[in-house]
């Protein structure tokens, strides 16, 4: 299995920090909390995370200056987090090389989406890897699963669902996560439609010889075997 992505949380508010840690851990990341704000930069370099969530109002060097310093030595993806909704901060952060900018109180779903998007972007840079499922080649752009000459056509929604399950293969994906992913792709479906889409996807896979590819876990979600 792929190694867990490591995310460093730089946040001085105790309550937010604890919950952020739990949120990221639940979402399958390794969350680390920065302890020593006086040597933030050295700490970040030592931990060597895959992504940094950086609050602007932290003790010691403020977030923007820290980012500025950090960029001299590291290109680690950074998401700036702040309770200020000031454009000046945003422009400054972006010009110092932040990858994204989020204001508190962040919607947890949106926060996870952004984290996921950035990690995906960084991960896939350069390598255009083609995904496979068992002996099926996945062509997400065209919505086609291919086995040799045989092709299975999926609708946009089915492809989004399949892709999401495939990315998290062998772990449980909640209906809420699937829903969020669909909505993020401008498909504003409701509960019924999601159920219908999943059963269609199941039927198509079954027709192709993959019975029970998608299992239902009661009250938790779905899992692609």
């Amino acid at each position, binding site marked *: 299995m792929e190694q867990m992505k490591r995310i460093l949380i730089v946040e001085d508010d105790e309550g937010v920090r604890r*919950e952020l840690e739990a949120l990221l851990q639940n979402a399958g990341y390794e969350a680390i909390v920065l302890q020593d704000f006086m040597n933030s930069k050295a700490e970040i370099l030592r931990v060597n995370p895959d992504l940094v969530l950086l609050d602007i109002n932290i003790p010691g060097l403020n977030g923007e200056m820290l980012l500025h310093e950090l960029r001299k030595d590291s290109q680690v993806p950074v998401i700036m987090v702040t*309770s*200020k909704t000031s*454009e000046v901060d945003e*422009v400054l952060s972006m010009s110092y090389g932040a990858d994204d900018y989020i204001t508190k*109180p*962040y919607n947890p779903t949106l926060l996870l989406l952004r984290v996921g998007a950035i990690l995906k972007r960084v991960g896939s840079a350069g390598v255009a890897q083609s995904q496979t499922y068992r002996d099926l080649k996945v062509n997400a752009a065209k919505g086609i699963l291919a086995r040799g000459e045989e092709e299975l056509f999926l609708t946009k929604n089915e492809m989004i669902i399949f892709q999401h399950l495939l990315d998290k293969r062998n772990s449980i994906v909640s209906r809420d996560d699937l829903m969020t992913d669909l909505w993020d792709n401008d498909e*504003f479906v*409701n509960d019924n439609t999601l159920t219908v889409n999943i059963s269609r996807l199941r039927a198509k896979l079954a027709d192709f010889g993959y019975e029970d590819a998608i299992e239902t876990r009661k009250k938790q979600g779905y899992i692609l075997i």
Partner: protein
Amino acid sequence: MKLNRYLKDRWIELIAYIIFGVLICFLMLAFAVNDELVWLFAVLYIMLVLFNLIWDFTRKRSFYDSLISHTEQLDKKYLVLETLEQPQFYEGELLYQNIYDVNKSMCEHVKEYQESLNDFKDYLEMWVHEAKLPIASLLLMCHNNKDMMDKRFAEQLRRLDAYTEQVLYYVRCEHAESDYLIKENMLNKLVAKVAIQNKDDLLENNIDIRVENVKLPVMTDGKWMEFILNQLVSNSMKYRRADVQSQIRIYAEDLADRTVLHVWDNGRGIVASDISRIFEKSFTGENGRTHVKSTGMGLYIVKQLCRNLGHTVEIASVQGEWTDVSITFAKNDFLKM
């Protein structure tokens, strides 16, 4: 300054002139002064009186007339003294100095209020930022412990969050110099963000949301626009009807010189007589009185923010059937160069 009023005002002086003139003439005649000398005196005397009146009238008129006409023309009337020349007569100087003093004290007074208002706004903004920390913690807690938490906790929390956010934007919308950044934003991204933020409420209440044709770029401030859309969507949810399948449609028209974004719902609508006042501050209207509690601030803030960003916002509705809020973004080719 009118001549007849001026003369009327000095009637005692004028009568004194006449009485003394006539008196002197009589005395001269009584002392058998040469007739021609009497005539000469009379003419000179009249000339003196006229000169005196005309000179006094003109110098006063030039000061008072410009005082009056400048005051009428200025839209900030208290600045009138700055536009006048110092008067060259004693009464004028007194008046000028006095107005100056009164003005100055008023300005200081206003400034005091302005400062205390600004202090209050600063404090309010700071307070909102502080208040967001515990809200952020609570939202994360709800998300992290979904199975244990009742969904209603999160729902109420989102309401609290929305109201807190509203205060912040209220403080900002009234001074135009607030920081915002206009750049190209994709409408579909903004709409998706707002929809996901409201996802749980929309699904919970079984509201159909349809989004069509919004893959368009607009020139706006992303965060402000998100707040505006959020406000409109939550209004649509708030004023839905119980007897029909609730629907929210978000779609855009791509016209030659502008882009128009519509947020349409089949909610209870607005009574025709309320529509013209719907964007007024603290206006709650019939819906606010009879159905759901309303602050009357949401749409007011939306209107102010739109005005600051240079968009226009309009509302159309048929009571009991639908409501359509449209926001018009100007297209500016100049910005694309």
